[in-house]
C-alpha cells in the first residue's frame, strides 16, 4: 500500500521531482515540505484514520516550531525527546499499555484500568518520532550544525522515507539536500531500484506470503513439524523481500531527487553471526537503537553483566517498537539473548567454520520470526511442532 499505488507516482513522486529540479535552490526544501505535507494528509485521510488521521499533519508543524528552540545542552531538547515519546506512546501503545497493566493487576490483585481502544495510528508514527528524537538528542549533544527551518522541515517531511524509513540522520541529509542536483545516471539507477523493489514485493514477497500466511490459519494445528518449519522459512523470505523491496522504492525515490538516503539491507542472511546480522538487517533502525538506547544505557562500557542487560533492554525496546504486543517483545529479547551468547562465545575466541556459522545464524534468525509473525500461543505451538514436542 502507498508505494505500490499509482497515486504515489502520479500525484506525489513525479510532480515533486520535476518541481524540485526546476526550482532555485532556496525553494527546494519547501517543495519537499509541501509535497510531504500533502502526502501525509492524502494517505492519512485515505488509510490512517480519515479526517483525524490527516489532521495529525500538525504534529509535524508543532515539531518544526519546537525544534527552533533546540540548542546544545538546552532543556528544550529534552522536552522534544519527551514529547516524541509521548506522541508514540499515546498513539501506538496506550491500548497495549493498559492491557499489559490489567494483566499484571489481575496477577497481583491490583485495581484495573478501563480498556482504551486505539482510535487512529498516524501514518509513519513509529518512524517520524524516531527522527524527532534523533534531532533533539543530537542537538542536545552538540552533534548538529545549524539547521534552517526549511531544511528541518524537508528532513522530517521527506515523503519517500516518511512511512517506513529508512530512518535518516540530519548530519547526512542536510549536506545532500544543499547539493542536490539532477543526475541522469543516479535517476536511471533510481528507476531501476524502484522497479526492482516493486518486483521484490509483488513477485517474491507476495508469493512467499501464500505459504507463510498458513501459520495464522487453522492449518497450523494439523500441519506436521517439517511443514511448519517451511512456512516459517517462507515468512523469513517474505519479510526480507517485502521490507528490502519497500526500502528499495524509498531509496530509489530519493535518487530521483538526487538524494542518497541510508541503506537498510546488506545481504543479511549471509551473516556469519548475529552481531553481523544486525549490521546488515534494517540498518537504519539498528544503528538508531544502538545510538539512542544501547549507548545511553552504558553500552559495553560497564562489565559483561551490565552489557548483557543493556543488550536485552535495547532489543526489548526494539521488539516493542515493531509492534505493541507481547510476541514482539519476546522476539526482541530472543535477539538480545542471541547477542549476549555471541559476545560470550566470541570473547572466548571460539569460532565456527564460515558455512556452519552462516547456517547457524540463519536458523537462529528464522526461529525468531516465529514470534514475529504469530502470537505467543501459536508461536509456542509452532516451535513445539518443529522440535517434535507437540
Amino acid at each position: 500500500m502507498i508505494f505500490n499505488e499509482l497515486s504515489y507516482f502520479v500525484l506525489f513522486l513525479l510532480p515533486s521531482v520535476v518541481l524540485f529540479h526546476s526550482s532555485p535552490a532556496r525553494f527546494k526544501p519547501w517543495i519537499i515540505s509541501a509535497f510531504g505535507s500533502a502526502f501525509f494528509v492524502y494517505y492519512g485521510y485515505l488509510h490512517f484514520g480519515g479526517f483525524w488521521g490527516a489532521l495529525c499533519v500538525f504534529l509535524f508543524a508543532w515539531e518544526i516550531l519546537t525544534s527552533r528552540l533546540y540548542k546544545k545542552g538546552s532543556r528544550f531538547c529534552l522536552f522534544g525527546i519527551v514529547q516524541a515519546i509521548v506522541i508514540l506512546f499515546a498513539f501506538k501503545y496506550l491500548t497495549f499499555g493498559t492491557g499489559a497493566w490489567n494483566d499484571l493487576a489481575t496477577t497481583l490483585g491490583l485495581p484495573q484500568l478501563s480498556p482504551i481502544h486505539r482510535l487512529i495510528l498516524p501514518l509513519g508514527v513509529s518512524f517520524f518520532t524516531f527522527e524527532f528524537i534523533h534531532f533533539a538528542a543530537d542537538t542536545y549533544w552538540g552533534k548538529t550544525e545549524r539547521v534552517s527551518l526549511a531544511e528541518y522541515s524537508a528532513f522530517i517531511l521527506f515523503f519517500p522515507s516518511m512511512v517506513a524509513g529508512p530512518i535518516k540522520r540530519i548530519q547526512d541529509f542536510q549536506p545532500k539536500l544543499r547539493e542536490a542536483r539532477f543526475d541522469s545516471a543516479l535517476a536511471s539507477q533510481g528507476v531501476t531500484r524502484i522497479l526492482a523493489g516493486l518486483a521484490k514485493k509483488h513477485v517474491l514477497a507476495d508469493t512467499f506470503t501464500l505459504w507463510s500466511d498458513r501459520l495464522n490459519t487453522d492449518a497450523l494445528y494439523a500441519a506436521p513439524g517439517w511443514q511448519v518449519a517451511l512456512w516459517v522459512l517462507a515468512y523469513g523470505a517474505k519479510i526480507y523481500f517485502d521490507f528490502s523491496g519497500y526500502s528499495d522504492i524509498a531509496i530509489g525515490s530519493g535518487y530521483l531527487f538526487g538524494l542518497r538516503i541510508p541503506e537498510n539491507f546488506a545481504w543479511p542472511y549471509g551473516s556469519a553471526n548475529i552481531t553481523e546480522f544486525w549490521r546488515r538487517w534494517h540498518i537504519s533502525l539498528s544503528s538508531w537503537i544502538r545510538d539512542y538506547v544501547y549507548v545511553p544505557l552504558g553500552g559495553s562500557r560497564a562489565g559483561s553483566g551490565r552489557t548483557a542487560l543493556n543488550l536485552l533492554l535495547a532489543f526489548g525496546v526494539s521488539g516493542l517498537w515493531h509492534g505493541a504486543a507481547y510476541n514482539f517483545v519476546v522476539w526482541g529479547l530472543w535477539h538480545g539473548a542471541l547477542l549476549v551468547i555471541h559476545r560470550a562465545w566470541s570473547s572466548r575466541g571460539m569460532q565456527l567454520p564460515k558455512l556452519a556459522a552462516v547456517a547457524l545464524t540463519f536458523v537462529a534468525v528464522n526461529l525468531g520470526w516465529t514470534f514475529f509473525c504469530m502470537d505467543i500461543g501459536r508461536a509456542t505451538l509452532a516451535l513445539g511442532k518443529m522440535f517434535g514436542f507437540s
Partner: protein
Amino acid sequence: MTSLVTLLEKLGGAQPMNARGRVRSVALGLWWLALLTMVLFFSGRYSKFVYVDF
C-alpha cells in the same frame, strides 16, 4: 560469488549500471520493461507492506 552479488546489485539498482551507449541503453530499457511486466502480472495479491503501521 562476489561477481554474482555485484550483478544482482546492478540489476536491482543498488549499484550503478553503466548504461552509456545504444546497446546498453536498450538493454536497460528492456530490463525495466521486464520488471514492470512482472510487477503488473503479479500485482493484486497482497498490497500491505509488513513494516507499514496500520
